[in-house]
């Protein structure tokens, strides 16, 4: 646990040296300590990696164990027998295969939701960047306000409104809020400024192409990498959301994976059902594995999105 503190500390200690860098005294101050050697730096990074991988290792190992082994054997070692296939069978057949249903729901909430959210964000961000219209900056500050209102602070207001219009405990109650991503609009404006040169639009306008057509046929393909980034951001956001589905849904058939795992986990504890605990563990692994795969495959995109905000 404390490993998180460890890596930075030793490198930091010798920091307070003489204050202004004395000009002209070349090469005088170059005496790297042991920690600043290749081995030292790599060792520190390895230590931090150990901390990040430890819990994932536990998850992987635990998913292969039988229920007895899960509670009876060391968490960082293999159990007495490999039970992975039985566990998977159990996971997908439990409660009439409700897990698969949750996965499907999550794909709809997060996949379709983020896709639409990204389309709407790019359209709005492009309009903010490239088109002239009255009240632009005032509208944009509304978007920034949206960035600042925390998503979970909206959960109860959304629930109250949904109760009023009859959307509580429906698919739409969770799906619709996912379509709005103010930070995506901000990112799209940055991307549009970076990727779409004004001259290209001038040329298209000269040729008499309509504004909407220009956006669809010329600008959108140029922003496409940014589109993927925005999609990924919102996808993880929705996939991660827990408070909103928790308050909005009571029908198990509408749950996203997150909420289902939580219910298994808490029923394992509150009603003393260890088999539900195993379900929560295996279900976690099964839902995390594809996410990790997606992240590994789409590295380029999430990196460019995360850094777009940073470099600006």
């Amino acid at each position, binding site marked *: 646990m404390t490993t998180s503190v460890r890596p930075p500390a030793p490198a930091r200690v010798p920091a307070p040296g003489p204050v202004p860098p004395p000009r002209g005294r070349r090469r005088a101050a170059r005496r790297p300590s042991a920690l600043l050697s290749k081995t030292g730096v790599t060792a520190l990074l390895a230590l931090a990696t150990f901390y990040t991988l430890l819990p*994932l290792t536990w998850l992987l190992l635990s998913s292969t164990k039988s229920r007895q082994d899960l509670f009876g054997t060391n968490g960082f070692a293999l159990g007495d027998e490999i039970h992975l296939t039985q566990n998977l069978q159990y996971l997908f057949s439990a409660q009439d295969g409700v897990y698969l249903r949750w996965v499907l729901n999550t794909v709809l909430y997060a996949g379709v939701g983020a896709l639409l959210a990204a389309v709407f964000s790019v359209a709005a961000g492009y309009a903010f960047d490239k088109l002239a219209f009255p009240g632009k900056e005032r509208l944009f500050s509304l978007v920034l306000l949206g960035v600042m209102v925390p998503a979970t602070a909206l959960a109860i207001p959304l629930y109250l409104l949904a109760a009023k219009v009859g959307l509580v405990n429906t698919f739409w109650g969770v799906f619709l809020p996912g379509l709005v991503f103010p930070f995506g609009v901000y990112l799209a404006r940055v991307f549009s400024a970076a990727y779409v040169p004004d001259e290209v639009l001038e040329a298209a306008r000269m040729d008499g192409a309509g504004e909407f057509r220009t956006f669809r046929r010329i600008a959108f393909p140029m922003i496409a990498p940014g589109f993927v980034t925005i999609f990924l951001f919102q996808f993880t956001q929705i996939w991660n959301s827990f408070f909103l589905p928790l308050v909005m849904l009571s029908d198990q058939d509408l749950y996203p994976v997150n909420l289902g795992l939580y219910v298994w986990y808490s029923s394992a504890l509150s009603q003393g059902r260890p088999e539900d605990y195993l379900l929560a563990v295996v279900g976690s692994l099964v839902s995390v594995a594809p996410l990790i795969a997606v992240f590994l495959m789409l590295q380029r995109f999430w990196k460019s999105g995360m*850094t777009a905000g940073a470099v600006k």
Partner: protein
Amino acid sequence: MASTSTRGQRRAAALLLSPFFGLFTAVTLVPLLYAAWLSLFTTRTSGLGFGGAENAFAGWDNYVRALADPAFRDGFLVVAAYCAIYIPLMIGGALALALLLDSGLAKARSFFQLALFLPHAVPGLIAALIWVYLYTPGLSPVIDLLESGGLAVSFLSADNAVFSTANIAVWEWTGYNMVIFYAALQAVPRETLDAAKVDGAGALRTALSVKLPMIRPAVALAVLFTVIGSIQLFTEPKVIYSASTAIGSSWTPNMYVQTAAFQDNDFGLAAAASLLIALFAAVLSFAVTRISRRGSKP
């Protein structure tokens, strides 16, 4: 000619903006306004609840009740304590790791970058489930390990709950911010670094006096998002709550709101408390932006 093009742009802008703003109005502005309206009423259920609920105008009453409630205020103290542990550890750790990666001394850079980022691909709820298992006495191999080393730690006790929650967040977010900082470091112009070298600055000096100030905007932005995220603290303590009696059902402001709404059916109070949290987050992030902006302009 010019006027038709302006009109064309306006029409296109309206078309491109309307899906976002239509939905934004429906799922952000209207809920906020509706919650603001509801927060001005209290619901009185008559008898067994069959007589129907009755709404009575209460003015600021719900806000006063929320602010006067020690449970609500303590929630903010918990978040403050959590921030005091989490933000320096996480931002400091991410910075240190990014500087190490950028030092030119690290081997297998892209492997480390990926491995350290990996926790971010794990949803917060699952991260919390895993860690709570690792916190549970009798199950946790970590506790066994510490005990064999003569250290008895109870992660789920009331005293350690803040630390245990912060650790989950550190695990989830350090690598993410490290990637951001690392990218910002790579954008530092070569000439600046060469100049520092010529001036005789060692690797550590360069990192602290040249590189760090140059990525200040990236750090400020990361702190801003971390602060907004911290106020929303809910998932991790909610999972800890189901495993330990050490923390109450209103441990953080968001947990307070949920308890008010669904345990006490006090929707007026829940709405008022929600809006107070949103307001607090907005004010705080505004302040952070202001401070960091002033700081970056010498």
